[in-house]
């Protein structure tokens, strides 16, 4: 099987609103319907409530669906002594692919030293760090990304959501030019028409990752943005899976 790869999803409940189909089985059913082979997720509980509870849930989902579900471990900067041990614990569990940092839920700037243990750990392990990215935000905006990327140049940094609503995706082009190691995922509820086309035209097809943000957003709407984008087929294939396989070191699993 060599289907699509969803590089940004979640799992479980969240206090802010109802997610009626947030379980791992629900997600896999939706993956099957859309031709998604693999999904890398973090549990909502891990950043909205209790990082150990959520990381355990994500690991359990990966264990229940081997080869289909993979997980990011969430690091909480308010428990600095626990960050590296928790990441180390998660890295030893099947399906671990990287670290997730969520500045707005933790109310800590992405470039704050409070996140240093996580950045340092990810750099040593060489695993990707997926971050919530909202271009104009004071905690996880372009300025924060520039500082973090400059401080941790060896880290494979994935910026989520194309920078937020509307035309925010345009911020990605100068960022990508300044920091060629950045990756970007496509999930988001209200992107401007032409965002993916614009990024591909800007030479970033090799750094774009399909992401759904499920169960916050239905994956059908997210994969549709890529499937129906007016871009070359090679770029589409890269976004829908090839790039993620390269990022996660799965190229050998292609056959």
């Amino acid at each position, binding site marked *: 099987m060599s289907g699509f790869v969803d590089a940004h999803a979640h799992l*479980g*409940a*969240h*206090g*802010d*609103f*109802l997610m009626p189909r947030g379980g791992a089985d629900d997600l896999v059913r939706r993956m099957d319907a859309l031709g998604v082979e693999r999904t890398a997720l973090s549990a*909502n*509980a891990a*950043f*909205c*409530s*209790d*990082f150990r*509870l959520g990381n355990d849930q994500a690991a359990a989902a990966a264990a229940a669906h081997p080869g289909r579900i993979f997980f990011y471990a969430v690091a*909480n900067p*308010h*428990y600095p002594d626990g960050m590296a041990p928790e990441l180390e614990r998660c890295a030893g569990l099947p399906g671990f692919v990287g670290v997730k940092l969520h500045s707005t*839920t*933790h*109310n800590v700037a992405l470039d704050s030293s409070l996140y240093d243990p996580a950045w340092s750990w990810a750099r040593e392990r060489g695993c990707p760090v997926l971050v919530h990215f909202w271009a104009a935000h004071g905690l996880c905006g372009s300025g924060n990304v520039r500082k973090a990327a400059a401080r941790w140049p060896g880290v494979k940094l994935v910026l989520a959501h194309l920078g937020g609503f509307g035309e925010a995706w345009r911020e990605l082009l100068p960022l990508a030019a300044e920091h060629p190691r950045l990756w970007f995922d496509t999930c988001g509820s209200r992107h401007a028409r032409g965002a993916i086309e614009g990024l591909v035209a800007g030479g970033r097809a090799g750094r774009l990752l399909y992401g759904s943000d499920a169960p916050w957003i239905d994956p059908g709407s997210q994969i549709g943005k890529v499937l129906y984008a007016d871009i070359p087929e090679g770029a589409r294939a890269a976004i829908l899976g090839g790039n993620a396989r390269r990022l996660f070191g799965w190229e050998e699993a292609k056959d």
Partner: protein
Amino acid sequence: MRILDNHCLFGRWMKDDRDVSLKKLLSALRSMGAEHGVAVSLRGVFYDHDAGNAETLEVCRRHRELVPAATINPQHYFGRGSLPARLVRQGFRMLRFFPNLQGWTPQGVVFERVLGECAKARLPVAFPIGKASDLASQLCRIAPKGCRVVLSDVYYGGLAECIEVLRRRPEFLMEAGHTCVPGGLEVACREVGAGRVVLGTNQPLESGLGAVEAIRRSELSSRDQAAVLGGNLSRLLGGI
């Protein structure tokens, strides 16, 4: 005097580095001399109310000084059965809402429905009022007759409104703990009766010692102080 605190939390807080662990709550209650605290798991606030309520029950079974308070997130509530009725059967003594942390307002019909189910199940409800606003008035209008609402976290800006609401709704109570302004507690007790005021301090997020000391050093009689510090809440919870 017995001290019973109606407003306690435990779990993990992800917005900053405040320690709201169970261990911290238990030590905070000990340091303020509280015999019991009515406690809610933050897992139920930020993640899922069913999971949080289960944790609350389990923790309260292990720590008898804690009295279980459940929570319901109206944004997650769509089933047809009455969860408040089930919560009472499980042993919960209070239902606490967290609209500010969950991003909803009391104007929704789901919240109205839950209040109706609480009234029927005889489950008291705690709702945060905070600074000056019309929240207490909204509750006054929305809550069905017989629904025992504790106006929680009453800050001094909302004091006059809460007094008027308590006059109109004899089954309502209010928390003292953040009424701050000199004479605020005395005015509230004079206007609505000391039997309508309970201690609620938001442990362990905030200091409870100041709230207890404010009551002890108030101009209330010893009898009224005892009522506010513990007697009223004991009665509301069905005898603790």
